[in-house]
């Protein structure tokens, strides 16, 4: 069990916890001290006394959640110490600033991957291989049906989808932080001349641009915009705007969603989008297997998603000491 007293990292109702350093990782409620792996809203909670994160995550958190949070930012790969426990952050390839956390106490090393991806992404540093004794790895897409196609292929599909629309606007829903920027960094302004982004996406874009990341040319979508001008164009919107009330104003509209879940037709059908594009900022099945093997960990814990199958598979096949962590409620 991860929660045996000897373990450096334990699972608590507030999230993963490093007792000797009195620090939580991505806590879901206010605590004294927290390390934040990345700037997605479900990994951040307001009201902590002190936050520690990568420099890029710091920029994003400030933009999203305000300037008055007490942030301490750390370069990737740089060691820092709390109560004698050594920490360092390493790129996890999920989104800009996303970090794995390496923790060393005495001769024992732990690694918490946070959300991770093994595919190339122009908007963030690539996943860094880190060796560890104990691994806590995400497993959002822990089934062998999840096999991501190359980013080029998906971008090509999106470009064709937009170009082939005769008279309607193509709305592509995507998370406003991470996915939207990854798409914008890959799309080609020459092939798609009319790209619009929602203001929530643009807000994040500003940080990326400041860091020198290049995007396809995109205009900010303004609600007062003449709708007829939007025909044949691509509009990126956050998924929260996928409701009939909002979409009604566009006369002719096609909707798509960019997410790893779109590889399953039933999920696509149920969500009501016309088209699904399977592009994910998480590791697919092979990515997870590779990550776990490369870590050379002697004990592995999986969290998020259906890790049970992946754990059972690797336990049988590789004789690995591995188990799924269920959320504590």
């Amino acid at each position, binding site marked *: 069990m991860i929660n045996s007293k000897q373990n450096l990292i334990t699972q608590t109702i507030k999230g993963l916890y490093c007792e000797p350093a009195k620090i939580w990782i991505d806590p879901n409620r206010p605590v004294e001290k927290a390390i934040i792996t990345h700037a997605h809203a479900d990994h951040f909670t307001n009201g902590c006394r002190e936050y520690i994160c990568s420099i890029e995550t710091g920029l994003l958190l400030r933009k999203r959640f305000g300037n008055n949070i007490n942030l301490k930012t750390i370069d990737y790969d740089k060691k820092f110490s709390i109560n004698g426990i050594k920490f360092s952050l390493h790129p996890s390839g999920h989104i800009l600033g996303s970090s794995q956390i390496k923790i060393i106490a005495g001769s024992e090393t732990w690694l918490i991957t946070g959300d991770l991806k093994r595919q190339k992404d122009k908007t963030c540093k690539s996943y860094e291989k880190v060796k560890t004794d104990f691994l806590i790895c995400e497993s959002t897409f822990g089934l062998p049906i999840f096999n991501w196609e190359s980013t080029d292929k998906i971008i090509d599909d999106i470009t064709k989808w937009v170009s082939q629309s005769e008279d309607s606007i193509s709305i592509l829903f995507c998370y406003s932080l991470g996915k939207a920027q990854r798409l914008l960094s890959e799309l080609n302004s020459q092939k798609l001349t009319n790209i619009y982004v929602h203001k929530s996406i643009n807000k994040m874009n500003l940080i990326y641009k400041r860091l020198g990341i290049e995007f396809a040319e995109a205009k900010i979508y303004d609600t007062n915009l003449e709708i007829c001008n939007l025909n044949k164009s691509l509009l990126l919107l956050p998924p929260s705007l996928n409701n009939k009330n909002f979409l009604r104003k566009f006369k002719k509209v096609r909707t798509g969603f960019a997410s790893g879940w779109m590889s*399953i037709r*039933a999920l696509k059908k149920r969500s009501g989008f*016309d*088209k*699904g594009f399977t592009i994910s900022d998480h590791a697919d099945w092979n990515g997870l297997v590779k990550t776990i093997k490369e870590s050379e960990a002697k004990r592995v814990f999986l969290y998020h998603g*259906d890790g049970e*199958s992946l754990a*059972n598979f690797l336990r049988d096949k590789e004789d690995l000491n591995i188990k799924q962590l269920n959320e504590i409620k």
Partner: protein
Amino acid sequence: MSLNKFSKLFEELDSNNSINKKVNSLTKYFKSNSNLNNIWTIYLLIGKRNKRFISGKSLREYYSDIYKMPLWLIETCYTKVGDSAEVISLLLQDKLPEKDIKEDISLDELINNILPNFFKLDENQKKSYIKLLWEKITKDNQLIFNKILTGTFRIGVSKGLVTKAISNMTGIDESIILHRLMGDFEPIEETYIFLINKKLEQRELAYKPYPFQLANTFDEKIKETTSIKQYHFESKWDGIRSQIIKRANNISIWTRGEELVNKTFPELIKIISDLKNDFVVDGEILIWDENKNMPEDFSLLQKRLGRKSPSIKIQNDLPIVFVAYDILEINGNDIRNKILSERRNILEEKFLNSISEDQTIASKKIKITKLLKMNSWEEVEESKNSARNINTEGLVIKNKNSKYLPGRKKGNWWKYKIDPMQLDGVLIYARPGSGKRADLYTDYSFAIWENNKLVKFANAYSGLNNEEIKELDKWIRKNTLERYGPVRSVKPELVFEISFDNIQISKRHKSGIALRFPRITKWRKDKNIMDADKLENAMRMIRS
């Protein structure tokens, strides 16, 4: 004419929710492809008796064997995805080379020549053959290929869409296309030429049943807005809706599911051939109790339907009748455009005229439904409520002035069904649905009290709306007691109103009762499990 093009069409249809766009895509496709390719496309899209070359389960087992992936893992994927062909095509993405430009295969070649080989092979040969085929097919075509293989082609392209597209393209009325699509369907070039032929010839449609007219659910407002005199009232028979066709001594009996059932009901064929006129009649096949002069329970008919060529003994033990209620054609003339009251006269005067002297044999097996005399809506209501006493489902109310039209035309036919029986049950098990409802707990089992134990009495899959399904899905995941494969047992806490059409003693079920068409009609959030019904209540329903 190819798997490639069909695969692209599928993708196009699958990624457009708008019906108009789907119709346009189809029309464009039909225009730019060969007749033979088009007829195979139609064959696959309308899913009419698509052949299954390999079952989904075997496909999963073969994959497990070939690629050394544990079967339990594939089964877990299957519960998530809900379709064997899709699971396999997703798993294969990783096994096939990235760049694969391969030869295209024509649909005709694939379905007529390549896939039928499976029927000649033993298990091991099948396995190597399927591997060979998988490696021959491009990644993009795997879903389509495996769907054809398992005969599970359903992509929400109904007959209606195909009909619209052909009608669009040819300018021929939809009802005629629909008629041409009825009955047997042979995927050959001639069939396509026949479908799009702009010349209309009655003779071409010989042996084809007409598209059935269907009834809408009765709207209580009709009682206030229209006069009772406008309508015919008939019993709503609980049997197999069928059309009997007699044209120049060729006789065929078609069910509404477009199955030819001549062999299942040989006793009817004999009698029909003795009738004097040619005709097409619409009616219902039932098992009949001569003594009580009313139909037997539907379950007996099901038993009879299970026998594809019934022995004389079965024919005697489970005697069927055909109850006619409409006539669509008489001696070669399509009379669907005549109004119902005129058609009824023709039915009464011409249908049962026998060649032989002895008309009693015919009238024992073939009847004309009685028109029920109703003087007021109160009487209609009463008659509907007492339907269960004579083993019918209620009433069908038909507009005397209506023509016979395909489908559910508002205002022509109404079904006025008896109120269902109901019991309040406790949710005890749930399993994920398939297809669109994969990975969502949508199939439920319910229990009622036997003394102080809960015993399962019904499975139900339908009746909740999407919001309720989502809410319940969340609740099930949080309140799981145990898992048995895909099935979860849950904390007995939620009560649902279960409606059903009939209830019977059953030795096969633990509770000792079997329900007909159980469905959920209400989530009783106001009730706790102690308020759920007792088995005694259910037993009392059977006796009454």
